[in-house]
């Protein structure tokens, strides 16, 4: 089973303080750490598990700056067989649509049975690339995928719906699966695998190699700090003082 995995290198903002930069359109990134987008790391692991069951090749693709090659190399160490970086610097402003269009161009000569992506990236939160790419390729897709089982060129796929409900689909291949976090347990690369991956060449393609007619669907105008809610009354004081006040509030509500 030949697989393509789309990977994005993103700033890790879940636990970090995020500030707007001078342009007003981006965040200050120099103090943030960058890593493989969380959902993408699950997509990669799922691809590796599928490959371990049925053989085949995994190609990892990332639209990113030169640093994304570090992330792709980790993908190679974990189990991808080859990697392609699409030069972010060549294509100006992007959205989910244009990203999908560029990925389509980048993979047009690669044979595959499935494309796996993360269902969303934590930076842009688009949820777009997987299904958009599938439509451009004219193949079926499933998003929020929480299980993939493949037999006889058919995939039995679980999608995670609201309220913990699962939607079970039967799909033919090739298809695009946008994978939800938690679908598996991403591995660490072993040292031997790291050493072997370190020397592997990453194919870098830019505007010389691919072009896309795709226009942007959307343009970011400005970032702003989400308006602060008015509801929370912030309790101040030492941990002991705020705990006392909180316990009183809980008691006033009749819950102790």
């Amino acid at each position, binding site marked *: 089973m030949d697989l393509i995995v789309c990977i994005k290198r993103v700033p890790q903002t879940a636990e970090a303080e995020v500030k707007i930069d001078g342009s007003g359109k981006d965040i200050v990134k120099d103090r943030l750490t960058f890593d493989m987008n969380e959902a993408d790391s699950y997509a990669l692991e799922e691809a590796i598990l599928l490959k371990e069951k049925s053989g085949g090749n995994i190609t990892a693709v990332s639209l990113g700056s030169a640093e994304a090659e570090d992330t792709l190399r980790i993908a190679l160490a974990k189990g991808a067989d080859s990697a392609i970086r699409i030069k972010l610097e060549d294509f100006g402003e992007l959205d989910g649509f244009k990203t999908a269009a560029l990925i389509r161009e980048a993979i047009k000569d690669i044979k595959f049975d499935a494309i796996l992506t993360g269902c969303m990236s934590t930076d842009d939160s688009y949820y777009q690339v997987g*299904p958009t790419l599938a439509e451009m390729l004219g193949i079926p897709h499933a*998003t929020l995928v929480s299980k993939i089982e493949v037999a006889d060129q058919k995939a039995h796929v679980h999608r995670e*719906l609201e309220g913990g409900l699962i*939607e079970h689909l039967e799909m033919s291949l090739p298809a695009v699966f946008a994978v939800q976090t938690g679908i598996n347990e991403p591995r660490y690369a072993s040292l031997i695998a790291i050493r072997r991956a370190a020397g592997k060449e990453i194919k870098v393609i830019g505007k010389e190699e691919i072009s896309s007619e795709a226009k942007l669907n959307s343009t*970011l105008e400005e970032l*702003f700090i989400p308006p602060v809610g008015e509801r929370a009354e912030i309790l101040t004081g030492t941990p002991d003082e705020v705990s006392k006040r909180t316990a009183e509030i809980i008691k006033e509500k009749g819950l102790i």
Partner: protein
Amino acid sequence: MANILALVEHRQGTIRDITYELLTYGRKLAEKMDGKLTGVILGHNTGDFTESVKKHAHRVVVADHEVFKDFNAETYQHALADIIQKENPFLTLIGNTAFGIDLCPALATQLGVPFTTDCIGVEIADKKVRVTRQLYDGKMDAHVYLSEGPSYMLTLRSGTCAAEEGNLTADIQKIEASITSQPDYKKFVEYIEAAVGDVDITKADVLVGVGRGIKEQANMSMIEDFAKAIGGVVACSRPIVDANWLPKDRQVGSSGKTVKPKLYIAVGISGAFQHIAGMKNADTIIAINKDPNAPIFNEADYGIVEDLFKVVPALKNKIMEMKQ
């Protein structure tokens, strides 16, 4: 005329709440532009659906066929592409749900319509569409312009507006289904209900919700102890389930349970909208988080900006003292 289409979302025979939010939001946008709101129902045995929706829209377009009984992005995409081409709306609104996420990008791409997802606000001025979206784990908002197109498509996040009672009487227009069987390449098989665990968090009066801020599995016992002291049950946000520290049936949020306890104490939860969606209707919400900008404080009634590892044990002691 700038008309708006809103897609009616249903599951297992029931219209989902997001639908009324879309219809309310869509009606207001349409009225501002002197346009009409059309609700689109794809379903099977849609009589009740139509009755419910017609109060909320100026028109309702209904395609009733067995193939639309359960959601399948492929059949819906096929049918909606037809409808949109005929109706030629200014804007199509879809819920940013598991359903909408699967449908909108592919549908808009097929139609060549500018789109974006997960909007929490839409402004239309001079035929330009500007939306508000959240980026970077919900820590930033962005204003985003859609590129000029013949028509536009958006998915709207649940909770963007409160659903209002409808007082319209829509014209009902029944149309033929343009697709009558599921394609071989993508078939809906079944819904699988979540496994029932030992604890039902939807029944608890007091929930202690724990999130990524707890850092390590070893610290979970501190939360269990605290919950026990306050007579509550431990629930959690998604990362805790992804890490296998609690079973899926403890997850609060859009892909987990929706809860409405008397008291919800959010511990180390930053407040991603998916989590908020599951707990915002709690009677009282207390949030403990060291990041003063954490979105959870926008939902909470009371906030404590402090290291949870200091507050939780202290609060546990205070509650134990009070009980005595």
